[in-house]
């Protein structure tokens, strides 16, 4: 069965199918305006200043700003810390002869779960019966003589303290009565190449 064709609909369709005549001058004016708008796009500084002048305030924008401040702070710390040195390291190492020691072929040790390692408790004991106070100072507590005071074991017993130190080599000493630095007689010693004299060495092993 053939569908009937409505003449009115056909006429409307034919009329709409024909595009109206294009006004070339109007097109030119529009394009000129678009180009002019692009050329006059405000600078970032202008946008920021405009943003500052806006009276409206939203929690979202404040939150975003606070988050940006935190991120900026952390990154600035990183930049002053490792990040900068890493970058310089990469740029300096490129093309540089390594002079490395031979490593058995095919051996690369596995990665641990974390590059960082935990500090472990280490007990130190020091015999100084006549001392009135003994403090442990070392690189594990930043050589801060207020951080790790030792406690006498019993009335006349040895002085003891527990420090937290990460696996590796540490250098330390005992500060007796706030005036005299003494090396640990129980520990191996090393020469202090910066300030002279001997320092005690603590080797901390991972569990």
């Amino acid at each position: 069965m053939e569908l009937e064709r409505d003449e009115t609909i056909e006429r409307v369709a034919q009329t709409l199918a024909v595009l109206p005549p294009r006004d070339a001058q109007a097109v030119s004016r529009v394009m000129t305006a678009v180009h002019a708008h692009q050329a006059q796009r405000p600078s970032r500084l202008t946008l920021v200043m405009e943003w500052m002048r806006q009276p409206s305030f939203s929690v979202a924008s404040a939150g975003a700003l606070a988050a940006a401040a935190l991120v900026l702070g952390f990154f600035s710390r990183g930049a002053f810390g490792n990040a900068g040195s890493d970058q310089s390291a990469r740029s300096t190492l490129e093309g540089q002869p390594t002079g490395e020691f031979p490593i058995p072929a095919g051996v690369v040790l596995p990665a641990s779960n974390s590059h960082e390692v935990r500090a472990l408790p280490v007990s130190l004991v020091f015999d100084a019966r006549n001392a009135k106070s003994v403090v442990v100072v070392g690189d594990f507590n930043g050589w801060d003589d207020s951080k790790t005071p030792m406690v006498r074991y019993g009335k006349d017993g040895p002085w003891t303290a527990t420090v937290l130190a990460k696996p590796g080599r540490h250098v330390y000493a005992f500060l007796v009565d706030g005036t005299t630095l003494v090396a640990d007689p129980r520990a191996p010693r090393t020469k202090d190449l910066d300030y002279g004299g001997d320092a005690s060495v603590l080797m901390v092993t991972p569990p």
Partner: protein
Amino acid sequence: MNFIRSCATVAALVVAVASTASAQQDARLTLIRDDATREVVRQQLGGALSRGVPVEPMMAKALEGVAKRASTKSIRAAMARLEENWHRAAKALAPNPTDDELGAGADALQQNVPESALRSLRKLAPGRSIALEIGVLTQLVARNVEPGQASKMVLELMARKATGTQLTALSSAVQEDVEAGLAPAMALDLRGRGIMSLLPPPSAVSTLNPRSTPRP
């Protein structure tokens, strides 16, 4: 101008410069009683921080000098050496050294461990901390073992999966032998061979599945 926006902007700037300012306002500076020394340390801290060295090791080096009653000049020189060694360690231990590794590396360089040894350690174990291994190497060199021999031994033990305990035992044993009068080179050779006899041969190590042999 909206007051809250202004406050937020100022806060962002304050946070950004806080890390730099903290170096010069560290409360531990008050532990340094001498005014001249304190000012020198403050300047050294600020300069080092701006060049990428964190405050903690620099402050520790300064307080170490104060505890040892070192002169202002000595403290300044020690801090400058640490800063230089920190940068050298960062290059040798690239690309992602931790502060612990950098501290150990700077300490090693101070004891005349060559940078090439640090690079080799990093190359052998790129994905985990090698602060302990650097420390063992440093202590061996500090006990007058020749740096090349010490580096080779530590690398070989690492490659054969020696544990941290074994490496530390090596350091202690060599220390005792040297104090007992044995030549450092001989002490390292003897003690190193002893530990290696307990380890699997190199061929077995290189074929092991790394993930099935976690480091103790």
